[in-house]
């Protein structure tokens, strides 16, 4: 087949003057050469215009006094950055972002690893369990946030009811920083643990069985095999989930936004006193509530650097930890 094809491709060059169908062949050649670029172009055009350009333009906007409605009011250099570094709300939002990220991602990925190990045992009805575990991930975050807002209600929430059964006083989940972070993290974990467990499960199933067999012969315990065979074997998948969870976890918006019942009604973003205001929420407040596009772009660009930095740190950290044994 390949040989025939090469011949057909070479034909026009050799036989253009005499062939009765040079036009068709030339067209065919043009087609083979350029159509591939034509069909992959839409992706690059859409990504370029609506993804990359806005992201890069953010850096430019951050150097200006730029109002969302009134437009560019002039170049101000690094003035927005200077203001940002002295802005207590920025540091608060940065702290909340990192705290929510650690609280939701670390237990989530560990739980996903454990869940995957359980799903990897010879189960009956595999498809059923897998679907059940994935279900939370397909539910919209807006709907999830409303349900969890009820769960963590101070007066009639189901969580406080359960705590009451064991004699713990009701907690005001939205008023306290730590309590609110726990609640929002629970929401994130509920949505993503099963998804990550399926990724780990897929990787675990491609680990060669004989590795376990020889370890069993050597008398290794299940726990030992898990850490010294399973985890190092699925390291690429672990690294992948760590990086994607870092990128996603540092950009939380909907969960903390809708955990706050005043989000739509009272224009609050992330708690009455910014207890769970993340950086994306703060960017939203500055840009789309106060229309200060220049300042919001500054927050966005700082967050971009934070995402980059934390992703690199986590990547190298995980590579070292998961590689042991």
């Amino acid at each position, binding site marked *: 087949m390949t040989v025939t094809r090469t011949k057909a491709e070479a034909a026009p060059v050799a036989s253009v003057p005499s062939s009765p169908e040079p036009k068709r062949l030339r067209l065919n050649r043009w087609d083979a050469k350029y159509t591939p670029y034509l069909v992959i172009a839409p992706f690059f055009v859409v990504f370029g215009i609506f993804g990359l350009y806005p992201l890069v333009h953010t850096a430019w906007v951050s150097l200006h006094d730029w109002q969302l409605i009134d437009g560019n009011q002039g170049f101000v250099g690094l003035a927005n950055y200077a203001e940002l570094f002295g802005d207590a709300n920025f540091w608060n939002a940065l702290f909340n972002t990192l705290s929510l990220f650690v609280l939701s991602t670390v237990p989530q990925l560990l739980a996903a690893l454990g869940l995957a190990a359980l799903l990897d045992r010879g189960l009956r009805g595999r498809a059923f369990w897998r679907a059940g575990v994935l279900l939370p991930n397909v539910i919209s975050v*807006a709907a999830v946030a409303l349900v969890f807002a009820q769960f963590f209600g101070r007066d009639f929430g189901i969580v406080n009811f359960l705590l009451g059964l064991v004699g713990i006083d009701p907690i005001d989940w939205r008023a306290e920083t730590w309590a609110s972070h726990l609640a929002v993290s629970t929401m994130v974990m509920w949505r993503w643990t099963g998804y990550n467990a399926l990724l780990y499960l897929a990787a675990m199933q491609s680990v060669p069985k004989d590795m376990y067999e020889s370890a069993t012969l050597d008398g290794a315990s299940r726990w030992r095999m898990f850490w010294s065979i399973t985890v190092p074997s699925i390291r690429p998948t672990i690294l992948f989930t760590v990086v994607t969870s870092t990128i996603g976890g540092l950009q939380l918006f909907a969960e903390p936004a809708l955990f706050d019942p005043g989000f739509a009604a009272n224009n609050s973003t992330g708690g009455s006193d910014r207890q769970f205001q993340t950086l994306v929420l703060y960017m939203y407040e500055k840009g789309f509530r106060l229309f200060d596009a220049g300042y919001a772009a500054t927050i966005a660009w700082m967050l971009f650097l934070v995402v980059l930095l934390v992703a690199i740190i986590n990547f190298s950290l995980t590579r070292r930890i998961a590689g042991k044994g």
Partner: protein
Amino acid sequence: MKSAKAGPLLYGFLVAVLAASVFPLYYSFVVASKDNSVLGEKLPPLVPGGNLVENITRVFDTVDFWLAMQNSFIVAATVAISNVVLGTLAGFAFARLRFKGRDSLFLLVLGTAMVPTQLGVIPLYMLMSDLDWYGTLQAVIVPALIGSFAVFWMRQACEETVPHELIEAARVDGCSVLRTFWHVGFPAVRPQAAVLGMFTFMTAWNDFFWPLIVLDPNDSPTVQVALSTLASGYYTDYSLMLAGASLAVLPVIAIFVLLSRQIVGGIMQGALKG
């Protein structure tokens, strides 16, 4: 660790995990079917009540939920169809056509998935208002017309199912690239294209951040944005809110029940190759 068979303890634990997965949805439905006052009672409600129709009616009275549903449907369906068409074409090209720079261009596609484009919303919003698209559905649709996931997914599908020989034969017979795609490529990957369509539909249906910014919540929003406005007012009416939430998740749950096997399979396959 296939050696040990699963025991009752393991099944018990998995039932608990499953219960935790389903409970928020079930509870949402329970509260949606009750009078809001039951939430003040000593025991939280656990069985559905008889107020479902009334609460749903109140949702439709509070916001134009029909319009929101309709908008979400238009957005999700358009985005799904477009991702299937453009993703299959691009995936076919990356898997089965020869052109210069193919492999590095594909790596570029994969790399874009890691770019936090959400952080570019400020200029994106300004772009939309320059185009006079604020408050219109195309502002939500156009940026989502084709994503890296669709390209990646369809390339994988073509790689596995489209026979090399048929492509060569069609090309030798003088079939154009697009005709070859249409008669040889597309028929082979139709099942995977269907799963991709459903998957993108769900993602677009669930999207919240960008529609919240670029659509007018009080004029013509999508379902998810309409949900966020149900939570307004001085006291929180959970029956109303969760009736809205239950309606909003219904289409996605329907798709999931029908296609969970394929969706799970797709995620797990993607994990291995990604």
